[in-house]
C-alpha cells in the first residue's frame, strides 16, 4: 500500500509551534509512506489539487492529512480523495491544530507529538478498509408526538408538503397550553382566536391522521423506518357515531366531583366531558374514576341522552401500529409544582408562598384562565376563594426559575413577558386595581418585547419592585406579601387580595420515560437534548427524530412555531429522496465465531442486534448467533468491546486499526 502524507501549516496556526517541514520529512521514512509534503493551506483549492496530483503521480492508495480537527475538514479531504479516485474511508486525519499546535508552546515537544500523531494515523490508514455508504429506504410519513401549537404547526407543514402525518395527543383534544391562554404577548391578540382555525385545519386535513386521547407505547426501528406502537385510550364514546352535540355532557349528574384540568382546577367538570367548547375533535370522554356507572353499574343518564347510541361503556384501549420515516417530538412542558415539596420530588417547592394552602395564591396558567373570556369567570378578574374582584394583585416572577436552591438553575424565559401581560390585563379590566410585580431582572429579548414591558410600567402603571419575596401569609382576609425592594434597600410588605406566581416551566413527569421509548437523550431536568446547540437545534441525536417547542427548553409561542416548521422541513428534506445514505460505520458479526451469548444484544442501545438461527442439515437449530441490522446500528461499538469472543468488528474503527494506533505510540 502506498500512502501519501500531507502536512498543513494552516497559515501559521500549525506551523507556529510545529515544525511542519520536519514532520513531513520524518514521516516520509515511515514504512509504507510513498510521498510526504507540507503546504500552507491544505484545505484550499491549490492544496486539494496538490493531493489529487500526488495521488496520480505517486499512485497512492491512501492518504493521511495532518491538519485541523476532523470535525472541521475531514469531509473536505474525503471529497478530494474521491475526486482523485481513492475510497473516502482510506483517508485519516491527524489533528495537528486543535490537539497539538494550539495547546502546546514548546516547538520541540509539539513537533515530536505531531510526528507521533501522523505515525498513528499512518498505521491506522494501512489497515483501513474501503467502505461504501449504506442505503436505506424511507417511509414517507411523519409521527408527531404532542398536539400543542408546536405539534400542530409541524403536522400542518409536513401535510401541506404532501406527506402523511400521524399526530398523537395524550389529552382528549389538541391545542395544548396555548388553548388555555387568554391573550398573547406582545400583541394582546386572543390566543384561541388565532389557534382554533389551525386546530380545525388539522382535523380536516386529508393527510393528517389525528389520534387524540392516545399515547406512544414504543418506537422501534431507525431513520426512515420507524415502527410506532400507539395506545388509543378508551374514550367510551364511539367516535364514528358521535356528533358532538353535548347532550350527554349536560345530562351527566356528576357535577362537583372532578376538577377540570383545562381550567387548571378552577372549575368542575362532569364525568362525561369535552375539555373546552372549541375542542378538536369535539367528542366527549368518559372519566371512569368518577362515573357512577363504573362504580355500581347504574345511572346511564348519558346513554338515555344520546340519540345516536354513541356511548360505549365496554370500549377498551386499542393498540395500533404506524410505520413512519421520521418522528417529531413536541411534547411541551408543565409548570413547576410550587406548593409544598411533593414526596420524592427533586424540586423543593415554595412552602413559604402557601400555594395550595391559600386559594388566592395561584399560578400563571390559573390566572390565564381567570383572565380568559371563555374561562370560569368569563374573563372577569375574580378571586377563586370568594369570587370578589381583587383590587391589589402581587405578581412574583422567577418562582422556581433561576433558583438552584429549589432545584432549577435555568431561566424559564417566558415569565417576564407573561407577567407583564397579566398585570396589564388586570389593569385594563380593573381600573382602580393596583398591580405589583416582584422581579429579579426583566428579560424581554424579542421583537417588540421590551416595548411591551415598558408599556406595562409606563402606561398601565404596573409597579415593578426589584427583589424577592420571602413569605406570604394570610391575615384578616388579605395576603401579606413580605419582600424586599433591593433598589431602595428596604423591606416591603404588601397586603394583596390575590397573588400570582410565575412558576418555572419544567418538562412533563414522564418526559424521561418517553425519551427512553423514542431513544433520545435528555438533560438532568428532563428536557430533550438537541444534537448541536447552535447548528442542529431541532435535531435530536437520534437520526430521524426531531424536536419542536418546549420539550427541548423553555420556549415561547413564536419560537415553538419556528422550531416546529424547522423540524417539519428537516423531515421533508429526509423525504426528498426514496432512500437514505448513511455513514458505513456499523458493526458486523462474524457468525462463524459468534458464541451466541447475546451480550451484544443486551448492551445495544438501539436494539440493532437480532437473533439468527443456524440449522443443521435436518433443519434443527443447533446454534443461535447475533446478527446486526445495518440500518438500525448507529455505530457506537459498545457491542464490539463487550463481545467476549471478539466476533464483532466496527467498520472504520475495527480492532486491528486501533491496535495499530496503539502500537504506533
Amino acid at each position, binding site marked *: 500500500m502506498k500512502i501519501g502524507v500531507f502536512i498543513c501549516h494552516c497559515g501559521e496556526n500549525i506551523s507556529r509551534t510545529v515544525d511542519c517541514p520536519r514532520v513531513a520529512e520524518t514521516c516520509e521514512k515511515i514504512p509504507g509512506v510513498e510521498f510526504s509534503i507540507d503546504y500552507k493551506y491544505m484545505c484550499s483549492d491549490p492544496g486539494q489539487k496538490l493531493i489529487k496530483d500526488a495521488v496520480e503521480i505517486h499512485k497512492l492508495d491512501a492518504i493521511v492529512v495532518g491538519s485541523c480537527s476532523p470535525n472541521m475538514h475531514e469531509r473536505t479531504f474525503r471529497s478530494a480523495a474521491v475526486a482523485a479516485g481513492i475510497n473516502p474511508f482510506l483517508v485519516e486525519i491527524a489533528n495537528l491544530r486543535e490537539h497539538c499546535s494550539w495547546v502546546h508552546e514548546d516547538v520541540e515537544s509539539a513537533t515530536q507529538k505531531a510526528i507521533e500523531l501522523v505515525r498513528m494515523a499512518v498505521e491506522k490508514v494501512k489497515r483501513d478498509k474501503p467502505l461504501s455508504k449504506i442505503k436505506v429506504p424511507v417511509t414517507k410519513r411523519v409521527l408527531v408526538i404532542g398536539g400543542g401549537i408546536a405539534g400542530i404547526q409541524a403536522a400542518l407543514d409536513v401535510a401541506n408538503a404532501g406527506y402523511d402525518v400521524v399526530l398523537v395527543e395524550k389529552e382528549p383534544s389538541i391545542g395544548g397550553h396555548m388553548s388555555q391562554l387568554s391573550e398573547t404577548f406582545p400583541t394582546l391578540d386572543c390566543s384561541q382566536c388565532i389557534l382554533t382555525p389551525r386546530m380545525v385545519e388539522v382535523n380536516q386535513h386529508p393527510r393528517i391522521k389525528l389520534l387524540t386521547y392516545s399515547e406512544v407505547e414504543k418506537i422501534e426501528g431507525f431513520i426512515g423506518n420507524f415502527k410506532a406502537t400507539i395506545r388509543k385510550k378508551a374514550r367510551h364514546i364511539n367516535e364514528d357515531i358521535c356528533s358532538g352535540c353535548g347532550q350527554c355532557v349536560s345530562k351527566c349528574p356528576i357535577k362537583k366531583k372532578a376538577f377540570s384540568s383545562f381550567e387548571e382546577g378552577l372549575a368542575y367538570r362532569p364525568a362525561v366531558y369535552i375539555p373546552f367548547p372549541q375542542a378538536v375533535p369535539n367528542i366527549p370522554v368518559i372519566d371512569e374514576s368518577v362515573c357512577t356507572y363504573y362504580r355500581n353499574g347504574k345511572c346511564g343518564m348519558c346513554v338515555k341522552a344520546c340519540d345516536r347510541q354513541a356511548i360505549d361503556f365496554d370500549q377498551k384501549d386499542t393498540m395500533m401500529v404506524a410505520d413512519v420515516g421520521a418522528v417529531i417530538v413536541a411534547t411541551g412542558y408543565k409548570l413547576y409544582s410550587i406548593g409544598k415539596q411533593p414526596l420524592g420530588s427533586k424540586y423543593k417547592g415554595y412552602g413559604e408562598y402557601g400555594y395550595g394552602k391559600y386559594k388566592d395564591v395561584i399560578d400563571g396558567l390559573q390566572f390565564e384562565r381567570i383572565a380568559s373570556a371563555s374561562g370560569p369567570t368569563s374573563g372577569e378578574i375574580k378571586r377563586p376563594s370568594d369570587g370578589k374582584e381583587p383590587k391589589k394583585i402581587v405578581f412574583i416572577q422567577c418562582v422556581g426559575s433561576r433558583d438552584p436552591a429549589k432545584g432549577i438553575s435555568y431561566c424559564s424565559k417566558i415569565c417576564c413577558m407573561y407577567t407583564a401581560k397579566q398585570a396589564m390585563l388586570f389593569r385594563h379590566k380593573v381600573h382602580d386595581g393596583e398591580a405589583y410585580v416582584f422581579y429579579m431582572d426583566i428579560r424581554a429579548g424579542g421583537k417588540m418585547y421590551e416595548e411591551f414591558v415598558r408599556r406595562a410600567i409606563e402606561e398601565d402603571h404596573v409597579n415593578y419592585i426589584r427583589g424577592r419575596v420571602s413569605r406570604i401569609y394570610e391575615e384578616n382576609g388579605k395576603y401579606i406579601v413580605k419582600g424586599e425592594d433591593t433598589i431602595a434597600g428596604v423591606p416591603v410588605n404588601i397586603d394583596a387580595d390575590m397573588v400570582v406566581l410565575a412558576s418555572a416551566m419544567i418538562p412533563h413527569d414522564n418526559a424521561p420515560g418517553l425519551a427512553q421509548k423514542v431513544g433520545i437523550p435528555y438533560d438532568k431536568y428532563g428536557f430533550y437534548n438537541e444534537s448541536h446547540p447552535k447548528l442542529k437545534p431541532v435535531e435530536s441525536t437520534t437520526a430521524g427524530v426531531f424536536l419542536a417547542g418546549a420539550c427541548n427548553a423553555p420556549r415561547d409561542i413564536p419560537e415553538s412555531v419556528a422550531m416546529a416548521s424547522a423540524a417539519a422541513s428537516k423531515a421533508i428534506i429526509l423525504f426528498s429522496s426514496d432512500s437514505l445514505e448513511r455513514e458505513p460505520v456499523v458493526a458486523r458479526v462474524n457468525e*462463524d*465465531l*459468534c*458464541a*451466541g*451469548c*447475546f*451480550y451484544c444484544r*443486551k*448492551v445495544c442501545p438501539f436494539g440493532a442486534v437480532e437473533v439468527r438461527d443456524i440449522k*443443521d442439515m*435436518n433443519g*434443527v437449530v*443447533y446454534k*443461535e448467533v447475533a446478527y446486526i441490522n445495518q440500518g438500525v446500528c448507529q455505530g457506537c461499538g459498545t457491542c464490539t468491546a*463487550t463481545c*467476549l*469472543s*471478539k*466476533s464483532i468488528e466496527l467498520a472504520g474503527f475495527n*480492532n*486491528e486499526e486501533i*491496535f*495499530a494506533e496503539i502500537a504506533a505510540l
Partner: protein
Amino acid sequence: MDELRRFARELLLKKEVAAVIGYEQVGEARTRPVVITDPDECRRLVLNEYCLNNLVVYLNRARIKALARSKEGIRKLAVVAKPCDIRSIVALIQENQIRRENLMILSMNCHGVVRDFGCEFNGDNLAAKCISCNTQSSTYADKSFGEVREIPKFTGKLEYDLSEIEQLPPSKRMEFFREQFDKCIKCYACRAVCPLCYCQRCITDKTIPRWIESSSHSRGNFAWNIVRALHLSGRCTGCGECERACPMDIPLSLLNRKMAMKSKELFGYESGKSTDNPTLVGSYDQKDSDELFM
C-alpha cells in the same frame, strides 16, 4: 446412590433424556465424568465426596449437544450437578447457552467435597469453595438425592489468603501475581474446564489482530491471566475448577473470588443466583457509582 441409578435408568428407558452425564468411581478416592446413553450402564453412576468435576462444562460441548439432537428436534440431557454447579447452569441459561427445558438436573444434598482426589474426606481436606458454602441444595434441581448432612468444619489451612494479599502494597501485589503468572505454561486447562469459557474461538487464539501474546514471556502471561479473570468478572460462579485443573498450581481463584466480591460490593450482583436476573455485564443502572470518573 441407588435411587439416582434407578431414576437415571428410568429416564433413559422412557427416552425422556438422550443421555445422562454423571460421575463414575475409579479407584477408592477418585471419580471421573461419564456420559451414559445405555440404561443398563446407569449402575456405574455414583454420588459422593469425590465428585469434584463440574459436569456442567460438558453441556455446552458440541459432541454432547449432538447427542441430544435428532431429526425430531432437541431431546433433553440429564446432568448430575452439585448445588454449586447448578449456579453455572443458571449462568449459562442467562447467557443463552442452554435452555432449562432441554435439561434434567439431578442434584444432591451436598455436604462438601474433598480438595483433591486421593484425600480422606474430613475437615482438613475440605475443598476451599465448601468452607463458607451456603448452597447445600438448589431450587433449580429437578430432583435431589441423598440426605442432608452438615459440612465438616474446616480445620486445614489455605495456601493463599485473599485478605492478606489485599493488604499488600500495590508493588508487592504486582510482584506476587507476576511470579504466579510466570509459572503459566499456556496449556489452557483452566479454560477447558471452565463451564463459562464456551467461546468457539477464545480471544487468546485470535491473531488478526493479536489480542494476547502467546509467546512465553511475562507480558503475555500477565495479559492472559488478567483477561481471563476480566472475562469471567460478574460471570464466574466460583466452582474453582480452573484452579484444580491448573498443572502449575497458580491460585487462579484468588482473582475470581476478588472479582465476585467486587461485583457484589459495587453492584449487589451474585452470578448464578437466578435466571431472572439481568447479567451484570450487559445491564446498567443509572445510579451506578460515578466515583471513578473525573
